[in-house]
């Protein structure tokens, strides 16, 4: 931004500098460690899905990236600067919580306020057009439906033509159509060269969008890799059935209650094949991909019981 930072040194480099970076970032709230020594790069053009149960530290991670909070130790960079430096946030876009829109302001006014912070914003009429908000321009945000608020909130993330967009659980509370509309918008932005960090606790959503998946639990990065790598690392399928007794089928976790069996596995197909091959008598077979949150709870609960350690304190879900 200043003339003193000459482009020559970086222009010659072949490797691509990340848009955002955490190095050994730890954030504590009192005694609770919300984020524990996390190192993460967000290279340009990537669509990164951040997965984890509630209280895993996803929100804290995003809050560090957008400068709302500072790390207790370690460092955080956004466009090569400290995120709490306003200049670092010129190319950043994010959505407010849908409940967080000022209720007395009109839709057009809210867009204008946010647009006014950026050097080259999308003109308000164009943005409203793109997000199907034209007829709502004169409406106060307090009178919008949940879905309309969500659309406005998402539109706000794109007002400043951001190069990096942070979306915190963008589709929570949306119906299926609205969810797919939003996914399309995210894909289109990504195709245009945009970089996205998206949090979700729905595996489906991350499967639909992300190229790279980072799984966070209890403030730590558990897995960081492609979708396939993550899927095999997390037993995200739940197989339920009724049976008098079952042989060992290689599930990650088994809960038995009377004749009800619940099994967690990364590969439900293989498990069902083994089940059928075993010749065991069963009924009411049901295979589901529950939220990753449930899968995590199942796995972490098993781990806690096994070594007899007290269940670690979860970070309370803090205001986002």
């Amino acid at each position, binding site marked *: *931004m200043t003339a003193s930072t000459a482009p020559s040194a970086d222009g010659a480099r072949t490797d691509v500098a990340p848009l955002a970076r955490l190095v050994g970032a730890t954030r504590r709230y009192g005694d609770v460690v919300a984020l524990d020594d996390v190192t993460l790069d967000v290279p340009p053009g990537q669509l990164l899905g951040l997965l984890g149960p509630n209280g895993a530290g996803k929100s804290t991670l995003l809050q560090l990236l957008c400068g709302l909070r500072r790390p207790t130790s370690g460092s955080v960079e956004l466009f090569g600067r400290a995120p709490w430096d306003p200049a670092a946030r010129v190319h950043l876009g994010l959505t407010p919580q849908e409940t967080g829109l000022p209720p007395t302001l009109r839709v057009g006014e809210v867009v204008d306020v946010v647009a006014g912070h950026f050097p080259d914003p999308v003109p308000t009429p164009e943005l409203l057009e793109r997000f199907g908000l034209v007829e709502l321009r004169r409406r106060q945000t307090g009178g919008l439906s949940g879905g309309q608020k969500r659309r406005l909130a998402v539109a706000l993330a794109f007002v400043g033509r951001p*190069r990096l967009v942070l979306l915190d659980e963008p589709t929570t509370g949306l119906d299926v159509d609205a969810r797919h509309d939003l996914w399309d918008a995210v894909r289109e932005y990504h195709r245009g060269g945009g970089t996205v960090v998206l949090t979700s606790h729905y595996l489906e959503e991350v499967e639909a969008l992300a190229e790279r998946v980072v799984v966070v639990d209890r403030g730590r990065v558990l897995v960081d890799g492609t979708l396939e790598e993550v899927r095999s690392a997390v037993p995200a399928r739940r197989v339920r059935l009724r049976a008098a007794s079952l042989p060992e089928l290689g599930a990650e976790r088994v809960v038995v209650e009377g004749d009800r069996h619940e099994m967690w596995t990364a590969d439900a197909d293989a498990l069902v094949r083994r089940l059928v091959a075993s010749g065991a008598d069963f009924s009411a077979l049901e295979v589901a991909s529950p939220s990753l949150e449930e899968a995590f709870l199942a796995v972490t609960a098993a781990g806690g019981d096994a070594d007899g350690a007290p269940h670690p304190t979860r970070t309370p879900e*803090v205001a986002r």
Partner: protein
Amino acid sequence: MSAPGPTRTSSSSTGTATSTDLGRRGPGALRLTALHTRSQLLETVRVPIAVVGTVVFPTLTMLFFVVPQPFAGDPVQATGATAQISLFAVMSVCLFTYGVGVAEDRALPWDSYLRTLPVGAGPRLAGRLLNGLAFALVSLVPLVLVAWLLTAATLPLDRLLLTAGALAAAALPMLGLGLWIGYRMTTKAALAVAQVLLLPLAFGGGLFLPPQLFPAWLDAVSTWLPTRAGRDLVVSATTGADLPATTWPVLAAWTVLTGVLAVRAYRRDEGRRFR
């Protein structure tokens, strides 16, 4: 929905993230201040009842406590009384707009969203200060009209500027107090504390009854209150009355004290408001 694409920076082919890519500078601090002032004003004005309380209460006080009194016919006393109530109006704006208003805003997710936009604390705070100033002015208009039409109060034009300056100086410790409450407390606590402080400070400072009517002990206590120092300053500016030697030191001490408290609360808040 269709999202617009990201900014294309011509300076770098690969789109790497170096600070040189930050490209064009965003809007200046003045434009951002105007932006925040405007949206805050809009937000407040759209809930008229919130405005009415602040604006009407001082005028009512004037109508009930000054206009019917015999001294309303005496130019010096009526002018002094108007000055006192003007300070009361400014003070309630400070405690409520800054105290309760800030506490309310802090509790809203919109406030943390604004903090993620490329804007520092300066323009947002400046917008808030200008907003409070606008309300103080609005609350003074009916008050001055009532004084002018219904009492013998007079203010020569050459004293107008002096009076405005005195009001501003007298408001400083109240501003600090308001911001301290706002950044330190939750909405409910801020409302209670603002209400608990408003009347004793106003009465004890001689904003309702002139201090000449105080018993000796109350007058002694009153001398050390920020409202009393402010009241003496404003009355002196309007009527040319002598300024007690204690006025400036007391006002300065309270300004520094509340200013330090406000700044500390603000800094503390940056790290802890999200708990």
